[in-house]
């Protein structure tokens, strides 16, 4: 049941990714060139809704629909937050796609996005290989 709900939320998210056009390389370019406010407004309003939701969930100690306690995974700061973050940003501007949109591009039939995905998979392997030697 849990997986069915997750699938439906994924479908919802995928639809909005396409309808907001944040999956378009051109939108990402216009964002980084400060030619269009579209992306910034979307990101900020998404954060606003997310932040209010998290605040309310914590304030009223809400539980999941199955009655479980809600735990939010916290990401700790480490050197990779900056180094990895910058490297991701470089790739984001080239491909015009962050991870969510990579999948959305593939799903919508953009075959070239498969290359972006294969690249990302190779990137995950490279990180797994280099991880013992990288500063964290």
């Amino acid at each position, binding site marked *: 049941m849990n997986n069915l709900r997750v699938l439906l*939320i994924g479908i919802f998210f995928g639809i909005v990714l396409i309808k*907001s056009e944040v999956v378009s390389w051109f939108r990402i370019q216009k964002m980084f060139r400060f030619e269009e406010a579209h992306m910034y407004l979307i990101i900020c309003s998404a954060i606003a*809704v997310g932040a209010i939701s998290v605040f309310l969930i914590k304030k009223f100690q809400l539980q999941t629909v199955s009655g479980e306690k809600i735990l939010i995974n916290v990401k700790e700061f480490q050197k990779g937050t900056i180094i990895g*973050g910058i*490297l991701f940003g470089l790739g984001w501007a080239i491909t015009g796609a962050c991870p969510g949109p990579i999948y959305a591009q593939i*799903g919508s039939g953009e075959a070239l996005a498969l290359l*972006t995905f294969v690249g990302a998979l190779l*990137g995950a392997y490279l990180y797994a290989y280099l991880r013992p030697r990288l500063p964290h």
Partner: protein
Amino acid sequence: MNWLLQPWPWYVSGPLLGLTVPLLLLMAGKTFGISSSFRHVASICSPNTKLSYLKENNWRSESWNLVFVLGIMTGAFIAMRFLSAAPFPLLPADYATTGGMAKLLVGGLLVGFGTRYADGCTSGHTIMGISNLQTSSLIATASFFAGGLTMTALTAFGIF
């Protein structure tokens, strides 16, 4: 119904994207994030790997992430096929050349490596992490943009 087939304005689509955060928390007890799926797929593809990052990854207990990603692909298909008046271009036409394909592969590698090293992407850090008021996610997001602006400048000057 016509508005549905047009691109949705930011004040509709932005809040809807943000709604994914409480939906996942309340309906499934999951913290929104996408880039860990790269790690899971890599783990699945290499069951005999010696690399601890992939070997010690219990992807089965995190399989919801792959279900979520499957949902994204399905939703994107539905939206492009049935909810769009006209399909819009996702990538520049010249990305269909050999050089363009190499760019996508290299760019994808940076996305995969960078998000794993930073432990999150625009979903897990920028939307989920900042919503949870995590300083690390704010720093990560600033780094994403530092990288993106740098690459855009390099491209503008014809360096990349």
